[in-house]
């Protein structure tokens, strides 16, 4: 199954992986913000940030995708999902790429499940492969009521 890709995507990196989200879903990109940790929250939740009076949950995309530990993520990609804003913490921000003519290809089936479950598909560019994130699923981690510590998940 192949679907035409969004006309423009915003790209960013976590470790050596390159991701993309349709620009319509991205509200803004911010540098590291003062963050309030949330004890007992799911592991991927790094904390809460104050986005002009609105409280936004910041998710560490690396932890969300179970990619192991890495350096402190520097950038906030604020995405809108189901009426709420959420922040994905990533290492680096790339360009906005024109991808209108490309086809969205299925995610290779040997990628880790954690990556596959939040990815729509891939865009293969001559020099790179972009994993296209589903913003709704990327910011969706649910808290388990009696999760006692943030070590495992």
């Amino acid at each position, binding site marked *: 199954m192949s679907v035409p890709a969004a006309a423009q995507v915003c790209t960013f990196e976590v470790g050596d992986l390159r991701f993309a989200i349709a620009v319509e879903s991205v509200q803004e990109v911010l540098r590291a913000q003062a963050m309030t940790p*949330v004890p007992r929250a799911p592991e991927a939740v790094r904390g809460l940030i104050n986005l002009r009076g609105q409280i936004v949950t910041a998710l560490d995309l690396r932890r969300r995708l179970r990619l192991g530990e890495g350096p402190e993520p520097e950038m906030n990609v604020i995405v809108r999902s189901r009426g709420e804003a959420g922040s994905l913490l990533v290492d680096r921000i790339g360009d906005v790429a024109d991808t209108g003519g490309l086809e969205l290809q299925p995610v290779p089936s040997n990628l880790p499940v954690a990556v596959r479950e939040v990815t729509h598909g891939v865009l293969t560019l001559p020099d790179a492969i972009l994993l296209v994130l589903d913003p709704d699923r990327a910011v*969706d981690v649910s808290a388990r009521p009696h999760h006692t510590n943030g070590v495992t998940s």
Partner: protein
Amino acid sequence: MDDDAEIIAEFLVESHENLDQLDRDLVALEQDPGSQERLASVFRTIHTIKGTSGFLGFDRLEALTHVGEHLLSRLRDGELTLDGALAGLLLRMVDTVRALLAVIESTGTDAAADGEAVAAVVAELERALARGTAAVTEPAAVATESGDRRADVPEAAEPQRGIMDSTVRVDVDLLDDLVQLVGELVLTRNQILQRTDGQADADLSRAAQRLDLVASELQESIMQTRMQPIGQVWAKMPRIVRDLANQLGRVVQLDMEGHETELDRSLLEALKGPLTHLVRNALDHGIEDPARRAALGKPPTGRLSLRARHQSGQVVVEIADDGAGIDPARIADAAVARGIVSPEQVARMDGKEIMQLVFRPGFSTAAAVTNVSGRGVGMDVVRTDIERIGGSVDLSSQVGVGTTCRVRIPLTLAIIPALVVGDGGERYAIPQANLVELVRVEAEQLASSVERLAGATVLRLRGHLLPLVSLSEALGGPQHPLLRGDRAGRDALTVVVVQSDGVRFGLCVEEVHDTQEIVVKPIGRQLKGLATYAGATIMGDGRVALILDVQGLAATTGVDETPAEEEPETPVAVADLESLLVLEVAAGRRATLPLRAISRLEEFDPALVERSGDVEVVQYRDGILPLVRLAPAIGLADASAPAGRLCVVVHEGAGGRVGIVIDRVLDVVETAVVRSDVGRRAGVLGSAIVEDRVTDLVDLAAVVAR
């Protein structure tokens, strides 16, 4: 009377709007007589006016709309067809209704209206009913009583603004936006106050103070626009109760108290369903039929009372009946029969736990599904609905005597006072509504006051054992250092005593910051499953702080409801209990002030005391705090040692803040005060025995007036 006036005012606004719609509907109907939709709309409007006017005792209006409604029902049922003559007649009825409303608006009753004119229209409507159509009559007899009305209104009366001119209907979304914006303003104000605190620039400080004042007033006014009296929900209750009583064959007297109790409109809206449900339950499961009541020796008329009041920043609504009460054995049987719990589980439960079973999903004792209740959607839905708006429900019942259901809900959800505490370098807000008191346990007293029982930590507090929970541990971190026995650099344990419903416990925190107004903000769906947080807020420095959910903390840390003997059972006893601040004055004499009159305890360096006229003052929170020395004010020698810090309790009354200088605070006690006239003098109301010692009861009003 004021209640009535309010209800009437609402009725007038609503009716005026409905009548305008009705005019349009009638005119449209003439063009298209077959429109069932329009007919139904007209019928509803007249029906509503009839119902309310009957309830409010407007006999003429009721008589008129009654016959009008009858005619409309014939039209609706197709027994009559609307022709020009009938439409004209109906429009005249609308005009007469309007004229009667005008009389009601100016005099508060319809008795002053031109009875004959009304009777003429009524007669004509009746003729039309009898005849099956309206005769073409002269339209001259339009019953406007403007002449008579003028005679009824005192000549001197200023042209009053009509009800339609003095109120404006505002889109609720707009109000919500305003609340949102004012929340932002409050946060910005907090940030600015924090930054201007201690600044030398006097102009800036003044501007900041002004901002503070304006923002507070604006916030209050905006919250006010969203406040509505609970009477709005109650207005529908007499009708519901009447219909249900007829349907179920009960005789019920409904008493309602506290119509004027106001709460945020969104909460009011959310409360409607649960309250109606509880009233239904009271009639269906509570109050028995007259024969049964007579057999039990009860008066045949059952009593249902609805009471609303404000209590410590919350609205408390009680639905009480004098019916059969809830039999724990029946609850247990029903719960087992429906597979909610096993017989073994029931065997291990006490009465109170069994009562809680009615809140379980799927619970019902009704043998048959009736029209009224017993469809399996029951108390669990009530509880869920009420908890969703930050409230709680509890039931108390005595078999054969009655059941009382108590619903507690916050006044508003948007901006609340909260205590900010610190733990692990982060700040957390505890809603003031959950706060009972702050207790400081000195490190050297730890061994004697804090005990470990089977792994649980408890505090001996005034003869009771209070479960202790360490905040950091509740949040998944380590136990509080002092509770671990690590005393390094810490001289006291700070315990915030919190309460939510039946649960009361002490939360051990590292630091207590201050009390402030916080704007409650929702947290993302990722965190909704965490019971420990009620939301989040933004602090003065722009950082986010989490708001603790006391109930959720109790649940996650395994603190259960406090056994009943610690809490006095009867509400009467609770009302008599008073929290008192016990003080020492004049080197060794004991006096007490009601705790609710005290906003803060402060200490000042005596060197900071200045004089203004013959009043001692200190500079306090960007203002001037007048001081009253308590000892001379209550006729004791001012023997307090001049050295050391000045201990001051701050009272915030209608006349502003006043600082009352005392020697020291001895204790805070909750006790039933039995006042004796012994020792009564200027500044002293009398005395009472508090903690086994005779203690002066300070007449705060008299002391402050000095």
